[in-house]
């Protein structure tokens, strides 16, 4: 579903990604693990069209989408839930969610999708008229994920959904992610500091280190790889 080839991305003089290649097949959950500043968020930003790569190629559903702006990709079913939540603080929960379905013109489908994400995250349904900026950190994260789902994506790029969230809630969010993958066939590219948990629910994983992919394997194999264990799983 997503395939990137020899992708190089730079911020000014700093090269964040050096010719990386990776593939996410339809229906898969794939995890990207790596230390701080490895380039995980950059990879997601490049795929979703938020930044232009310097060179290389990004394919989405079989077509070349290199350089296609983010708003066009959302229309094609690619949704990015950015790192650090980035909810619209001055808008209500309800308005945030509706903005997620901005390209959807059919009111009935918006209402259906709203129902769906609110059952997924019941905490949000009690707070639809509250300003997003006044939500707790965990609630904002739920909102960010719910909002990303409002566009009814076929492929979801999820950047650190567990950041700053209580362990119990992380578990529940991850359960929802798995459920989305199983019931809707949602393809997910996941970036996660909590590599253990992420690999547990993933089919495959890639390890990124200072802008280069140094390892890729099935999730189970990565979990039992001693190098990965030492560097990322805290074993």
């Amino acid at each position: 579903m997503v395939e990137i080839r020899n992708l190089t991305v730079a911020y000014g003089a700093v090269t964040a990604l050096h010719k990386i290649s990776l593939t996410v097949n339809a229906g898969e959950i794939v995890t990207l693990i790596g230390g701080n500043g490895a380039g995980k968020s950059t990879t997601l930003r490049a795929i979703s069209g938020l930044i232009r790569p310097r060179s290389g190629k990004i394919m989405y559903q079989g077509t070349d989408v290199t350089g296609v702006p983010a708003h066009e990709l959302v229309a094609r079913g690619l949704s990015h839930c950015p790192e650090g939540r980035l909810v619209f603080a001055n808008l209500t929960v309800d308005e945030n969610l509706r903005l997620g379905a901005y390209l959807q013109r059919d009111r009935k489908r918006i209402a259906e999708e709203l129902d769906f994400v609110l059952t997924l995250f019941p905490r949000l349904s009690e707070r639809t008229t509250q300003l997003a900026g006044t939500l707790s950190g965990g609630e904002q994260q739920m909102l960010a994920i719910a909002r990303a789902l409002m566009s009814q994506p076929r492929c979801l790029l999820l950047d650190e959904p567990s950041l700053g969230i209580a362990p119990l809630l992380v578990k529940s969010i991850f359960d929802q992610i798995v459920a989305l993958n199983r019931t809707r066939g949602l393809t997910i590219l996941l970036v996660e500091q909590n590599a253990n948990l992420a690999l547990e629910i993933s089919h495959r994983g890639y390890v990124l280190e200072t802008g280069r992919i140094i390892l890729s394997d099935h999730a189970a194999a990565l979990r039992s790889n001693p190098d990965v264990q030492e560097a990322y799983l805290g074993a």
Partner: protein
Amino acid sequence: MLPRSQIVLLISLITAGIISASSSRIDDYILDVILGIGINIILAVSLNLINGFTGQFSLGHAGFMAVGAYAAGTLTTGPGKVWFDASGASPALLFPFVLFAGGLTAAVVGLAVGAPSLRLKGDYLAIVTLGFGEIIKVILQNIEWLGGSRGMVGIPSYTSFFWCFGAAAVTIYAAWALVNSTLGRGFLAVADDEIAAEAMGLNTTRYKIIAFVTGAFFAGIAGGLYAHLKGYISPAGFDFNKSIEIVVMVILGGMGRHVGVVIAVVLLTVLSEKLRDFGDKRMIVYSALLILLMLTRPQGLFTWKPARKAITG
């Protein structure tokens, strides 16, 4: 049955018409100040769309006002006068079209100025509009058939109370309707977080351009009204100070609020009349006011409640 907002607009227009009919009884000087307030309301409310609701920073609103003023003046006084007279229609009937033409010209110029810089994220707009304000002044100073730096004189006084406050009412209505539409939610999202808005599938450039061009359009209308109020326009009248004056009104009123901005306009227009004796020192007072405000009330002077109601609990 019309929606409530449209009824309010209609009532405002009728009221403006009634007051206008008896405006000859108002003292000339006071009427002049009142009409100045109306024009400033149009300027501030339209700038608020850009600087307040969409979170961009334009410093060139006086430039768009100049474009509108000169475009409208060209039609009634400049080379367009021939056509204007030949049409045989009464000036009062043609005036709204003249204003519209001024607004349209300003909007086109706004598109040309805004489109390249609004593609970028960051403070490029402030720099570009600052430059635009100066450039338009120099251009106008060098166009001989528009009067050059001497300006355009003998512009007929078509700006009545009705046209002035009618236009102000329409501006407020348009801004209000825009902000409360789906489009407006896009504006607010862009102001809140551009990256997140982009990730949601919003073409942020498009929203910024729509807000900017709409703002320029109404500034152009204000320019046309101004020209036909004062009877005389010159490039120097639309300088950086004028742009700053409008920015101050928006900030003082609380960015992204309609009512606060209108109150700020009234207050500042009257204040600046009172400060006229100080001449150049007026700008010092303005600047001091702005700095003081930024330090003490960054949310604006007239924001007695949050911009949008949040239900807690």
